[in-house]
C-alpha cells in the first residue's frame, strides 16, 4: 500500500509473491544520516584502497584499473553515512571529514 505521507523511498507496493530484487537496498538512500562528509584529496590519495576494504556500506567506489596496481576512489554520497572510518584509516590523510550544512 502506498502511503503519501511517507518519504518517497518508503512508499512501496508489495511484490507479488513477496519477491525482492537482490541488492535492492540501493534504492534507499542514507545520505541524510550523515553529519560529516568525507572529501577525498585525489592528489594525496595513493590508491592503497584501505578506505574501500574497511567501508561498512560499501560507499567507497574504486575507480577502474582493476588488477593493475594503484587506483583511486570516489565516494557514493547517496549511501555514505559519514562514519569517518575511511578518514581514520587513510595512511596519507587524504580524506577530510567536512561538516554537512544543516538543511532546514
Amino acid at each position: 500500500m502506498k502511503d503519501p505521507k511517507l518519504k518517497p523511498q518508503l512508499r512501496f507496493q508489495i511484490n507479488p509473491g513477496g519477491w525482492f530484487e537482490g541488492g535492492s537496498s540501493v534504492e534507499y538512500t542514507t545520505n541524510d544520516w550523515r553529519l560529516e562528509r568525507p572529501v577525498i584529496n585525489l592528489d594525496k590519495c595513493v590508491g592503497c584502497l584501505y578506505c574501500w576494504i574497511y567501508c561498512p556500506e560499501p560507499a567507497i567506489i574504486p575507480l577502474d584499473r582493476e588488477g593493475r596496481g594503484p587506483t583511486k576512489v570516489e565516494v557514493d554520497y547517496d549511501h555514505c553515512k559519514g562514519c569517518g572510518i575511511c578518514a581514520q584509516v587513510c595512511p596519507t590523510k587524504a580524506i577530510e571529514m567536512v561538516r554537512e550544512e544543516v538543511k532546514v
Partner: protein
Amino acid sequence: MMEEFKPVRSIFEIPRKERLAPGHRACAGCGPMIAIRQILLVSPEEPIVVNATGCVEVATSVYPQTAWIVPWAHVAFENSAAVASGVEAAMKSLKRRGGIDKERPVIVFAGDGGTFDIGLQALSGALERGHKMLYVCYDNEAYMNTGIQRSSATPYGAWTTTSPFGKVWPGKRERKKDIISIVASHGVPYTATASIYHWKDLMTKVRKALSYDGPTFLHVYAPCNRGWRFDPSLTVEVARRAVETRFFPLYEVEEGKYRITVPVPKPRPLEDFLSIQGRFRHLLRPEYREALETLKKMVDDRWTWLERMATATSKS
C-alpha cells in the same frame, strides 16, 4: 581433504565484485558489516548465505528490499547451523540426481548471541554431522540488536545494560566463553579467530576454511560502536588495539594444530584498548583496580595457554 588455496597477499588481487549492497540500515561505522563485506568479497564463488537473527539480518533485510546480492536465508535465531546443514544436504542430493553440476559454498553469519548462546546446540549438531559449511560468528560481544544485553561472549568487566557496574559489580562478572575450544573439540578440520583490522589474515582464513571439505568455523572480532560506546570512526582502530594488546589473539586450529597467526611479541598496555571504549572506561577508575587486574590476568593467562598449545601441537 583439502583443495589448493592461496593466501591473500595484496589488496589488488581481491575481486571488486560487491555481494552486499549499500542502503542497509546498520549504524554508521558498524563493525559486523565490515566483516560480512570482507568475507563475501573474498569468497571464490558466490555463496549461499544463511543468516541468524541479529543486527546484520535485521539491518540488511528491511522490507521490501534486501542488501544481499547472493542467495540468502533467514529462519530463526537459534537454528542457522541446522538450516545451513539442510541447504548443504539438499545441494548434495541435487548434484547426485543431476539437478546441478556443482555445489556452492554455504556460509552462515550469526552473532555472538546466536552462536555462543542460543545457536550452540544447532552448531554442535552440524559440526558433529560434518556438513561442509563455513560458520562465521561475528562477535560484537553482546546482544546488540535488542539493546546491548550481555551474552556469554561479553568479556569480564564490560558494561552492558544487563551487566551494569556499581558498588557490587565491576560490569560483567563472568569470563568470556572459549568458543574456539568448544568447536575444535568436535574434531573439525579448521577453526580460527580473525579481526576486521587484519583483513589479510581474515581473508586468508576464509579462503583456507572454504577449501576444506567439512565444517569450518571463524570467530571474527567485530566492534560495535553503539554498544561499546565509542566514536563510529574508531571501529577499525578498536579492532586493531584488541589484537595489539593481546586482548583478542588471532590464531587457528588446523587439523588439531594450534598456530598464532598474528604474533604480538610486544603487547601494548591493555589500557590502550579499554580507554577508548565507554563500556570499559570505569575499569580505569581506582575503585575498580581489582577488576582491572583480574581482566589483565585473564588476558595474560590466555596468551600463555595459547603459546603452550602452539608449542605442544607443533611437534608430531
